[in-house]
């Protein structure tokens, strides 16, 4: 044995170990983009920075668009009132007033937030920031079977699942994309929020904020779980590695931003609006007919909607929910925003007084069950349409609906059981 070389090797080996632990090789930032990237991909503040910007996107989309939504709402309400007071034939008046103007108004009220989301997204895209965001979230996401590029769609889902699912087009890998789409509806969209606010406010007053936040957290956790399960049992493979070149940062050009937002908004309008509009008409029909029985839409207990609600009731009675909740949930299939409004319609009160009537039909435990079911049970009609479009087949769409229904009942059942057991009922 040549111990001279052995010892020399042993020393260098030792040095390598020591140096590995004490010395870090750091690329000196050379360009402006490098400089910004040192901050944006920093291991400590990178993720918080990203989350802050995403929150800014939401604030921008929902708060700043609010006046536009309200303007649309006011306009169509006025049209609706005008129609109902000017048209002689009561059925026609109802059709045009509530059905058409109501329906249009209902759809178009969505337009401003969605348009603003697309504007904000276009700005983020044009600055070149998005690849950095994907990079920063990638490690956390690959642990649950997703990848960095899944994060923006998942986060957009908190606003509305429709543009969120459309945003998955940036994911190249087919499997990664499918999984992201399939768990996206679990990200609690803004339409579900009124349900949480109403029921958490009535039954969990002091901790309402915490309850609402837990609903969002529950959605995230379930999404992570389902993504892991899908990856493991259905799709296999691993999330594709994030190989990306960061483009240099640039100032977004207003024209490009507006154009991009405009195009995407038009797509949304075309697809979802037809579905939503038809859905609103259907809802109008179901809650207004049979005309005579309901006396022109006043006595909803006698409507077709009520019949459907009663039919659904046996399914939800185990959670302490009655037929009124049934109607609301069925309405929620058309659009989740309808849930609270439907309850108002059924109880015959305005949206403001609904809170007072609620305790007559619900208990804290059943309220919890309702919130959970609303969170999970099925995608709204518009989202369903987009699912079919982006998944490419009815088979997968049906699978999504099926797993969500099952998951909703299972989780609600567990939660209801725990709540009752804890004496919350």
């Amino acid at each position, binding site marked *: 044995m040549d111990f001279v070389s052995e010892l020399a090797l042993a020393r260098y080996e030792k040095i390598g170990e020591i140096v590995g632990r004490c010395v870090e090789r750091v690329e000196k930032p050379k*360009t*402006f983009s490098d*400089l910004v990237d040192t*901050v944006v991909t920093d291991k*400590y*503040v990178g993720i918080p920075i990203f989350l*802050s910007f995403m929150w*800014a996107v939401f604030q921008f989309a929902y708060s700043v668009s609010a006046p536009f939504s*309200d303007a649309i709402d*006011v306009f169509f309400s006025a049209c609706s009132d005008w129609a109902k007071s000017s048209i002689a034939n009561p059925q026609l008046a109802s059709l045009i007033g509530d059905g058409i103007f109501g329906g249009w108004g209902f759809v178009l009220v969505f337009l401003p937030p969605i348009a603003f989301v697309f504007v904000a997204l276009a700005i983020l895209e044009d600055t070149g920031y998005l690849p950095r965001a994907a990079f920063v979230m990638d490690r956390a996401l690959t642990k649950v079977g997703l990848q960095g590029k899944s994060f923006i769609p998942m986060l957009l889902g908190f606003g509305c699942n429709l543009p969120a699912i459309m945003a998955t087009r940036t994911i190249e890998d087919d499997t990664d994309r499918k999984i992201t789409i399939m768990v996206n509806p679990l990200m609690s969209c803004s339409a579900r929020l009124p349900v949480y606010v109403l029921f958490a406010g009535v039954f969990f007053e002091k901790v309402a904020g915490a309850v609402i936040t837990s609903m969002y957290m529950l959605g995230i956790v379930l999404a992570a779980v389902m993504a892991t399960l899908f990856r493991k049992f259905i799709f296999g493979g691993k999330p594709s590695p994030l190989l990306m070149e960061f483009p240099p940062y640039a100032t977004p050009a207003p024209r490009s931003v507006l154009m991009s937002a405009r195009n995407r908004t038009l797509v949304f309008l075309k697809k979802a609006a037809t579905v939503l509009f038809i859905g609103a008409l259907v809802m109008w029909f179901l809650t207004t007919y049979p005309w005579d029985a309901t006396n022109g839409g006043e006595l909803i207990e006698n409507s077709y909607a009520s019949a459907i609600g009663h039919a659904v009731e046996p399914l939800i009675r185990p959670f302490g929910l009655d037929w009124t909740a049934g109607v609301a949930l069925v309405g929620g299939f058309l659009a989740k925003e309808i849930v609270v409004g439907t309850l108002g319609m059924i109880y015959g009160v305005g949206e403001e007084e609904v809170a007072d009537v609620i305790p007559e039909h619900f208990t804290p435990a059943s309220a919890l069950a309702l919130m959970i079911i609303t969170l999970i049970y099925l995608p709204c009609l518009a989202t369903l349409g987009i699912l079919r479009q982006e998944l490419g087949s009815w088979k997968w769409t049906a699978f999504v609906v099926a797993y969500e229904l099952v998951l909703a009942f299972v989780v609600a059942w567990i939660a209801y059981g725990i709540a009752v057991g804890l004496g919350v009922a």
Partner: protein
Amino acid sequence: MRWYYSAILFIVTLAAGLTELGGGLKGEAVFQLFPSDVFGGFILIVISAVFLRGITHDEHDAFFGFGSLMLAVFGVLYILVLFANGLDAWIVGEEWNPVEDLRIEIVLLPLAIPGLIALNRARKTLPP
């Protein structure tokens, strides 16, 4: 840029963030003056963390500049929200007092200026 610029901004944004957070959790306006919400507080704390990180990092200037950028972005955002609320109140026909929407983030805007100037200088002198 000296590190004490970052130190000052760190303390100011941290204080603002904590008070807004506290106010948001209790449901009150801060000092009866600024409306508050929990997330606004969190974000100010994140911004303060960026300044803090810059103090010990090699690339101090980058963190200082970016933290200032964030302050500016959120300040402008809240100004937009302010105007949106005003517009909304007019449309819906409600009472509106602009002072009620004057958030801490808007008031902190001027603090972002030195950092923004530095950032812009860097943008012009360095390759993209």
